Every structure is written in C-alpha cells, then in structure tokens.
C-alpha cells in the first residue's frame, strides 16, 4: 500500500536520513523511533504529502505520489504536533468541522458519542481554549474514531494523554489495523499496537543521519 | 539600604517629571491654542495667506447689508480693537445677530475682504425669556438687533 524508495531528507546543510525504503501493507503499523531531531517529524510530513522529499519517491497504492496528491489526500488522516483546534469553537464544533472537511458522514449524535468515548462529554460545549492539554489531544482521538481514512499518520500520539487516553488510543489502533488500515506513527515511548501488526523503524540506524 | 535610596531616586524622578508636565500644560494654556483668529490678527497679517482659516469675533452693529435678489450678505467682524469686512453667500444660522458672536470659515480675498464659506454663530451662556432680555437691553440701551434672514423669512 505505502512504499518508499531511497527517500532522503535534508534540512539546511544536514542530511537527516537517506536511502530510506520500506513497504507497509494493509493492517500494519510503522512505528518510527529515534533520538530527538533525527527526522521523524520530517518523514511523517513527507508521507502525509505535506512536503517533498529531497530524493526518492513515495508510492501509494502502487502509484508514485507527489505532495498534495489527490489520491493520497483521500486516504490520509494526519495528526501532527499542532492540534488544529479553533480556540473560539467548542470541542463539538471543532470535531464537527473536521468531519465535514474530511467528508465523513457523521451526525450530531455520532459526534457526541465520539466525544463521550474520549471522556469529553461534559466539556463538549465550552470553547476549546479552556480545555486542558490532554483534553485537546483527546479531540484528535475522537476525530480518528470518526475517520474512515486508510492511512493514519500520527506524530507523538501519546503526548499529554493519561492512562485512560492511552487505552482509548489502543482500542482505536487495534480496530483500525484489524480493518485493514495502515498506521505510521512517531513516538519515544512504546505505542499500544498489537505486536503482530508492528513494524518498528529506528531512524537512528538509517544511514546518512548525523544527529544532535 | 542602597536599593532603598535607588527607589527614592526613581520616585523623585517620577515626581519631577509630573511636575514639569503640569508646568508645561499650564504654560500651554496661557498661550493661545486657537479655534479661530481674531480680526486683529488678520489685520496684522498673522493669518495664513494661502489657505482657509477661521475668524471669530462680534458682528459689528449696523454693519449687515444684503445684496438684493441673492443670498449674499456683507457684514463686519470686530474684536473691538480691529474690524474686518466679511462677505458670505448662503443662509445664516438662527443665532446670527448683530452684536453677537460669530465664527466664519473662509479665506482672504484679493479685495481685502474675508470670503466666508461657512458662518457659525457663537452664543453666550445666558438663557432668559424675551421679556427679561428686553428689560436688560432697555437698561443697558444695548444695540438694536436686526432680524436674521431666517427669522425674516419665517415672518
């Protein structure tokens, strides 16, 4: 499904990684690890189609894709460092706006259920500005639970989550992988992914890197 | 100890600044911050020559004349020391009275007269019924008033 060939990333005069190639099949989760600054975020943004690789190519469903490729845009759900929440809108409104943008058919009940699943039922109607760090991240989880995208790209999904939140993520990931979805995630901690589906990638071992 | 002295120094500096500021404000208000020029200034050529300005003063008693069949009026504005002629075309405000305050906007014409584009009446802070006014005027033998254009038409 998702494949890369001799991918390279450069920032300034530093090469973060090069010659990176992997293939990820349906139901598999690529968990990228590596020291701070080794290029995990950079890699994830490339795979999401947000930025162009310095070298190499990315293939999705067998076809080589360039940044903002239409096919890729239909398939990918990207949860980056930034929460993409509008402080003025409530959690409910934020989530509703997202699902509409992503073209998911989700009615008010579904959205309320998704928020309840991440224990935000009682905070669904206050402006997102007032939410705590973890509550903001949980809205991202709720979004994933409503998403029917095939490829989830998650940058440090555990940030600010308490143990309940981690459990929610675990359920989501398991269901997604089971349904044939793909996951690419960067994390410094072990991700709650069934070992059968786990494809670890340690960026520190990829050649060309010069970190720190 | 040292910190405390420093603190006093700052407070002293602040007070001094406020003092100077007050002095500056007072001196500013003693000189003229003008909304309009006086006829004396006009005569002394203390007014802009090339652009419009305002003249303020009293309408000289008995100076108001009208050109027949037009709205053009001529009158003289005085600050009791000096007097300048003014011409204006248009409706005068209700309060325009000979002997009363007026502020005219316009510029000096080549004929030495002030050509007003706008005439504002400036009135005093006295309010009284007409009977009281005429009683006072009788007492002072004040200048007789001419009806303004507006009032004349209203009759």
């Amino acid at each position: 499904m998702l494949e890369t060939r001799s991918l390279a990333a450069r920032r300034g005069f530093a090469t973060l990684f090069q010659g990176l190639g992997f293939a990820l099949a349906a139901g598999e989760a690529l968990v990228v690890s590596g020291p701070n600054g080794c290029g995990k975020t950079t890699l994830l943004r490339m795979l999401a189609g947000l930025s162009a690789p310095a070298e190499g190519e990315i293939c999705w469903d067998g076809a080589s894709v360039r940044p903002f490729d239409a096919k890729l845009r239909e398939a990918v759900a990207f949860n980056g460092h930034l929460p993409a929440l509008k402080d003025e809108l409530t959690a409910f409104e934020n989530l509703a706006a997202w699902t509409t943008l992503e073209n998911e058919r989700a009615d008010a009940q579904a959205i309320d259920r998704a928020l309840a699943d991440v224990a935000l039922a009682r905070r669904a109607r206050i402006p997102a500005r007032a939410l705590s760090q973890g509550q903001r991240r949980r809205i991202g989880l709720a979004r994933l639970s409503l998403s029917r995208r095939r490829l989830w790209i998650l940058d440090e999904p555990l940030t600010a989550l308490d143990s309940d939140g981690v459990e929610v993520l675990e359920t989501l990931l398991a269901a997604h992988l089971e349904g044939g979805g793909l996951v690419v995630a960067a994390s410094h901690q072990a991700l709650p992914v069934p070992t059968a589906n786990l494809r670890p990638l340690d960026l520190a071992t990829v050649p060309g890197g010069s970190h720190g | 100890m040292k910190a405390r002295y420093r603190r006093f120094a700052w407070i002293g500096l602040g007070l001094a600044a406020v003092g100077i500021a007050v002095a500056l404000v007072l001196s500013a208000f003693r000189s003229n911050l003008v909304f309009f020029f006086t006829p004396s200034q006009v005569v002394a050529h203390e007014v802009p020559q090339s652009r419009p300005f305002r003249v303020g003063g009293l309408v000289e008693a008995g100076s108001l004349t009208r050109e027949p069949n037009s709205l053009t009026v001529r009158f003289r504005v005085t600050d009791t020391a000096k007097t300048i002629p003014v011409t204006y075309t248009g409706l005068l405000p209700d309060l325009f009275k000979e002997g009363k305050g007026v502020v005219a906007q316009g510029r000096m014409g080549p004929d030495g007269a002030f050509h007003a584009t706008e005439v504002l009446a400036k009135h005093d802070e006295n309010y009284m019924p007409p009977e009281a006014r005429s009683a006072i005027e009788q007492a002072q033998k004040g200048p007789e008033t001419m009806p303004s254009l507006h009032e004349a038409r209203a009759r």
Partner: protein
Amino acid sequence: MSPTAVPQPDAASVSAAFAWALGRDLRIALRSKAELGVQLMFYVIVVSLFPLASSPSREVLATLGPGVLWTAALLASLLSLPRLFAADFGDGTLEQIALSPRPLPALVSGKMAAHWLTTGLPVAVLAPLLGEQYAMDGTELWILAAALLLGTPILSLLGAIGATLTLGARGGGSLLALLVLPLYAPVLIFGAGAVDAVRSGLSAGPQLSLLAAGLLLALVGTPFAVAAAVRIALD
C-alpha cells in the same frame, strides 16, 4: 470506523467545500460577539480621524470625502488580513485544510468570502451613512456604495494572496502591508475616482466598469494563486 475506501459522496463538489470554509470562518467571526461591531467602530474612528488631524474646513472635507472613505475601507481590510490565514497556519488547521480531499481553491475561496462578508460588506453599507459627514449628496452616496461593493471584494481577494505569501515569514504585519498596498492602489484610484467623477458632473460608468472587470478577473484568478501559496507555505 471501518477503514474501507467508501466512495466519498461529493468529494469534488466545489460548492460544498466553499460553503464549509465560509460557514466555519463566519461562525468563528461571530463567536466573538463584538467582532463585527468592532470592525465597524474601527472604520468610523479612522474616518473621523482625518478631520481631527487636518484643519476641518467644510470645503476641504468635501474634497477629501471619497479619498478618506476609501482609504479607511482599505485599511480595515488590511488590518484584518493577518487573521485570515495566519491563525489557521499557526494552529495547524491550514495543514488539515490542505490535506483534505476537497478542492483547495474552493476552500480558500470560502475563507476569502467570509473575510469580505465580515470586513468589506459592513464597510460598504456603513460608508454612505458616514459620507453625509463629508458633505456628499444622494447620487454621490449611491455611487460610493456601488464602488465599495465592487471594490472591497477585490481587496479581500488580492489581500488573501499577500496573506498566504507572508505565512511563516518574519516581519508579518508590515511585510504584508508592503506586499498588498501596491495591489490595492488601483482599486483605490478607481473607487475614489468614481465618486469624484459624479461630483464633477461626469458619469462614473468607466470607473465602475473597470472595478467590475477587476473583480471578475480577481474572482477567476486568486483562488488558484492562493491555493498554490498555501501549499508553498506548508512545505
């Protein structure tokens, strides 16, 4: 939650994308209850500033009228430009918008439309009322309103290009102003010119048709330019 690739209902629908962005931005704008009022107040204040600063002869005021009303409209548009994309850029929403399957030009068009509705339209409606202050008469006020209705959308459209190009650049606000003001200048000239023309007893036709032409061109061109600029900004 099943990750099978369901054929998406109206993924390509331009109007749905437009409506989404428009609705969302309007909702955010109206959420700050005072927002619209503040915009209008700003306009009123700027329009009233000029007489404060220059000597307020009525004659000069009349000459100034169209220029001041237009320049203030332009500044109101300019001041609200940074918010147009910078907020979305800063909080990651722009990434999500650019990654969505919906057509990006339609999405950014919705945002630009919301910007016009919250800044340009109120100004166009208010300006004739303020025009009275500047000794403008009936026809002049109508022409003023017409010119503003045609011109302010151009301001929002052209401004959006500047706003996206300066995303993530240093020097934010003033760099944006620098980029955008030269683009605004022709709109200002023809817009103020239209009122001047009727005041001089001429027809405002030429100026208005030029504004209309400009608007049409901007409507066709800018969505794509802005979409391209958004993608560049995210790279």
